[in-house]
């Protein structure tokens, strides 16, 4: 019925004047698109150039870090060549130096730190995003943020004055009952098992535990953000199908947050590799590769720099710069990978 009233209206004799507006209904189709470019005002162009300069300065600072380190390091790298990566001893004055042992120590400490940090961070992130409610949740989030701001020297103090003494029973317990695993054995040069307390205090294990606690906040907050973005519809669907809360976490939250878990772990690893003061305060520096992580004696690249910068000659400083450059490149690669994984996991592509 409404159709028949509409149709005659269009085909009515009065259609001739009617058809004219029909063609003129889209007058822009014939013309070119209007260009929406206008001359920017003076204040705008000033703002643009100032903001552009600020961005440029930020980039310049970062590039300058890399450039200066490379220039200063070139002396030492030219002398050492490839043996810089394989030599264990650090004595630039006699032209034999390399970062094999300190790099090994750095990686060991960082891996132990991740063994401490990842389970704690994963559990805490799930606790905050899935279990805690309301006030408790916001309190925990604030606490995590606050802990990220606690200075590393405070963690170092705790490590030296509390943990070093109290780690002895733990470390000796592990070495007694798990000594059959090569990493956990603590033996002297002849291979006999050590039980002396001083054999356990300044180990990579102690430093790793402290560094692990330091990186937990970073890792936790990255993981929590990823978990909180799990789609609410899928969560509800899991509950509606009769799943328990853990079932829902297994089926929805963990698969969706996988990118966040990997990215958070790698970001934490990057932080752990670069940590200086806490490691420096705790370890007793050595320049050989020490496979026994519970045994006193380890080193890291950043601790090496902090230890030797004061007494170095110009060439020694150049060698330290080379070590710093390696550390810089290593953390850069890890963090770039991590942040690209985190950024990709945010797209929500994995939920389909």
């Amino acid at each position, binding site marked *: 019925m409404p159709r028949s009233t509409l149709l005659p209206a269009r085909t009515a004799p009065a259609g001739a004047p009617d058809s004219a507006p029909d063609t003129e209904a889209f007058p822009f189709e014939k013309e070119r698109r209007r260009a929406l470019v206008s001359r920017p005002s003076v204040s705008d162009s000033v703002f643009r150039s100032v903001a552009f300069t600020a961005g440029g300065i930020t980039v310049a600072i970062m590039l300058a870090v890399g450039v200066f380190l490379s220039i200063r390091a070139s002396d030492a790298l030219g002398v050492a060549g490839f043996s810089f990566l394989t030599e264990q001893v650090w004595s630039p004055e006699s032209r034999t130096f390399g970062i094999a042992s300190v790099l090994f120590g750095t990686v060991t400490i960082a891996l132990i730190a991740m063994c401490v940090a990842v389970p704690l961070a994963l559990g805490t992130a799930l606790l905050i995003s899935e279990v805690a409610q309301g006030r408790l949740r916001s309190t925990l989030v604030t606490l995590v943020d606050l802990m990220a701001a606690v200075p590393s020297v405070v963690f170092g103090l705790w490590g030296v004055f509390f943990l070093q003494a109290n780690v002895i029973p733990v470390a000796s317990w592990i070495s007694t009952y798990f000594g059959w695993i090569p990493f956990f054995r603590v033996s002297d040069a002849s291979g006999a098992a050590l039980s002396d307390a001083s054999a356990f205090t300044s180990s990579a294990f102690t430093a790793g535990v402290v560094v692990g606690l330091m990186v937990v906040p970073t890792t936790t907050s990255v993981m929590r953000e990823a978990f909180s973005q799990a789609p609410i519809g899928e969560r509800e669907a899991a509950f509606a199908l009769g799943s328990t809360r853990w079932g829902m976490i297994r089926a929805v939250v963990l698969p969706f947050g996988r990118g966040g878990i990997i990215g958070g772990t790698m970001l934490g690893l990057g932080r752990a590799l670069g940590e200086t003061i806490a490691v420096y305060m705790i370890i007793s520096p050595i320049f050989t590769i020490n496979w026994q992580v519970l045994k006193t004696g380890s080193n890291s690249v950043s601790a090496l*720099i902090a230890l030797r910068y004061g007494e170095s000659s110009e060439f020694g400083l150049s060698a330290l710069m080379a070590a710093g450059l390696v550390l810089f490149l290593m953390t850069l690669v890890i963090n770039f990978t991590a942040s690209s994984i985190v950024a990709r996991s945010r797209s929500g592509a994995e939920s389909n």
Partner: protein
Amino acid sequence: MTFIPSPDSAPIGPRRRVRAARLDDRFNLLGAAAAGIALSTLIFGWFTPLSGGVGWTLVAFVSFIGFYALLVSNTSDFQEVKDRVMSVLLASAGIVLFGALVFVVAFTLVRGQEALPHLNFFTESMEKAGPLDGLEMGGILHAILGTLMQIGMALVITVPLGILTALFLNEVGGRFARFVRTISDAMTALPSIVAGLFVYSAIIVLITHQRSGFAASMAITVMMLPIVIRASDIVLRLVAGNLREAAYALGSTRWRTIWHVVLPTARPGLATAVILGTARGIGETSPVLLTSGVTAVVNTNPFEGPMISLPLQVFDFVKSPEPNMIARGFGAAAVLILLVLALFAIARLIGGRAPGDLTARQQRRVGAASLRDLQRITLQHLNAPNVITQTATDPHQKESSS
């Protein structure tokens, strides 16, 4: 025909508490804990030659989990047992973490109590105090002053540069902005000792030829800048787009929009970003270690001579074997932590709200302002009605005259 029940007639039962723990849940937890502790004590004390607190804790925890699973399985199926056990594991991860972190802070504060009650600790420097002197001699005034000056100089550079860069990322955009964002993300990963090495080689070796407070503040700047940029970037992104669009629709230029709309809206968030960056920068030790040098006297000239800061002073104090020096180190660390906590409290007080989300007081103020505007406009209309009619009739007069 569909019958729609009126909402008034439907009986409303008591609200169900879906999250609340039932009584038997609590008894399960308590019982499992008691059983775990008992079993662990039994094993370690009587049955086997095991010993040590660590082993006891480990066995107690594992048996607690086992007993808890057993108790829950009396009334529930396997899925629910898994759910309960995992909940307990998640909670224990949180308890361990927060326990450890609170313990780290509390340990420092408690050990710092030895030095903190002495008033001279805040008003004197270490100039005249030797390592063997008691706590009633010497203090950390020089380190407090050094920290404040270094962080002040770092803020002078970081705040404008960081916020302008964040504005560039958000308001200008483009390919270069994406590059800048990538670079500033990468800068957050910069190991702090590398920042120290950079400033050492770029500023100390090339320009000043000596360690100074200025060089230290530059190193802190390098560490703080990416934190400020990232935090402000996130805040600026949260400013509602329709606020900007409204400003553009009223014909304002980009700069006016940013100055009068974006920045005021994001002000609390930006302040939070700056404070968080400051809290992080204050605690940096290793870049300062390479750039500022250690001293025992008050130095207020940032360009000449070593200038110590609180974290570096802590580090320097605790290297000494003297118990008094270590007590001073803990005192300085406690001051540092209190400083960071205070900054954090301020940041939470200012921030913690989305941009444009006003407090009750701000809402009252804005309401009062718009009421004043309304009164002013009405008053104008009442006082000069002929001016308005004049302008309204103006074109007609022109037409008739032409």
